């Protein structure tokens, strides 16, 4: 089982053991509209918490994805790169972006759980 955390920049990370899978939230994909292009990091790249790690683009917007926590990229979702629409259809499952080996698990404590994130999003509207 994994535990899912959320950021104020609308990323999610599902953590199990010392690894986490990262994607953008349903709210984020909805705000961007139909995604047409995704730029994913090279596996092996290390990233700091909050560092720019990927880009998602719709026709009219380009949005940086910030890594929820620090760590080293161990895998990317080629299916999402090939078919960005997958992120619109399954933002919080099949449309994940990259898998990361956590650099510092203590950083997770600063993230939101689902209930807190939902409240955060509601506050934006």
């Amino acid at each position: 089982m994994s535990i899912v955390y959320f950021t104020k920049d609308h990323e999610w990370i599902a953590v199990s053991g010392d690894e986490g899978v990262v994607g953008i939230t349903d709210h984020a994909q909805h705000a961007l509209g139909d995604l047409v292009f995704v730029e994913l990091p090279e596996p092996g790249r290390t990233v700091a918490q909050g560092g720019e790690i990927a880009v998602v683009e719709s026709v009219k917007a380009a949005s940086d994805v910030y890594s929820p926590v620090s760590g080293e990229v161990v895998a990317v979702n080629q299916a999402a790169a090939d078919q960005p629409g997958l992120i619109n259809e399954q933002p919080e499952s099949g449309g994940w972006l990259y898998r990361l080996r956590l650099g510092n698990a203590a950083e997770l404590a600063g993230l939101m759980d689902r209930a807190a994130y939902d409240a955060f999003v509601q506050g934006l509207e």
Partner: protein
Amino acid sequence: MIPTLSGNQGLQIEEPLIFEQDSPGACGVDLPDAPAIDDRLGGLARQGPIGLPGLAEPTVVRHYTRLSQKNVGIDSVFYPLGSCTMKHNPRLNEKLARLPGLADIHPFQPQGTVQGALELMDTCAHWLKTLTGMPAIAMSPAAGAHGEFCGLMTIRAAVAARGETRTRILVPESAHGTNPASAAACGFTVDPIPATARGRVDLAALKAKLGPDVAALMLTNPNTCGLFEDEILEIAEAIHGAGGYFYCDGANYNAIVGRVRVADLGVDVMHINLHKTFSTPHGGGGPGAGPTVLSAALAPFAPLPAVVHDDQGFRLIEHAAQSGAMPVGRIKGYHGQFGVFVRALAYMMSMGADGLRQASSDAVLNANYLLAELSSDLSASFEGPCMHEALFDDRFLKDSGVSTLDFAKALIDEGFHPMTMYFPLVVHGALLMEPTETESKDTLDRFIATVRGLARRAQDGGAESFKAAPVFTPRRRLDETTAARTPVLRWKPPAS
């Protein structure tokens, strides 16, 4: 309605690509045969065909005529595209630009054989300097964004010449995207400054951001909300007090020509879009020109070339060693957009000092008329008076199911080019209308009646018709998502 057999709809005729009309052996020119020679290509002759289609002249004429009929221009419709200044393009300017003595001259002819051309550039520069009150000008920038780049280069060089390191540029959130992009191209970082509820720069916030690392403030005035920055003198004083320069984006200069000299506003540098304010044609997206006026402090850093005048006549300074200054180099091939200068100068001479002043008054009057007449049905973003453009947001469409985009597309069916949509970014669902001085009251009245009617239709549950719009155009809404997901950027021959 029964579809036509041909796919055409009366005057709207389907037109294939030139590549799909290839008639091998056909040709639209008659050239003399090349005399027989031993070639000097050093064995580097092209191998195999290029793949260009063969078309006779009548086929070519019909092709481009039909394509033109799928376009609208200022010649055919009211085109109130905010921040673009779509004014009438006089044909006199086209005629003069084609005089052989102006069109058929080479940039590197001996300068004694192009004295008229150099005088023309110098005269154009003189008009622009006099109108703005600025002492110097760089004529070579090719467009507005290129003028921004030119101005920021001079700032960067001037700061360095003072022995300082200033890397930050302050840019309002409402700025055109070119501002931060130009700043980045000059190696600056961009720091956004917020606006007040009155749609103007927040002076207190600006002052709080000033510091010894600020190279300049980039401010559009009148600003992108169509408002004059009424605290501009205080803004200029603040940026100068902090040792920075004041860059004015001249995209909206059409509002104030002949009524306000930018020198009197404390501006150090401003680009002028000749294709907006001075009526040279937009041509479907260029060519334009962005001459950039400079204060005495920045003038020594202006890029080359420059035209000078002495008792020998007119002369081009093309090299730093000849200039006696510290130019930032060269940012454009040759001597600038000469063909655009011809048109702009012809316009300025036609209008004169009196006419240019009347034009900005009329441009502002027309925009305020739209603002006044439409405020009851649309939602104006800020209180007037506005300058040359009127800004509305999408509050009037709230809960109607109609978006700004839908509203714009419905205007197309009504025979108008839409206003600028979703810019500036500081209001929600922006609709920015710039009528210019070359529209009649009658045109504005018909536009006002149409916009009012559409607003009421939207508020009365007519969303469905908006979603379908436009329907009377050569193409209906285009699928931009597919275009971006699987880019097809050129024709390729069908697989055989």
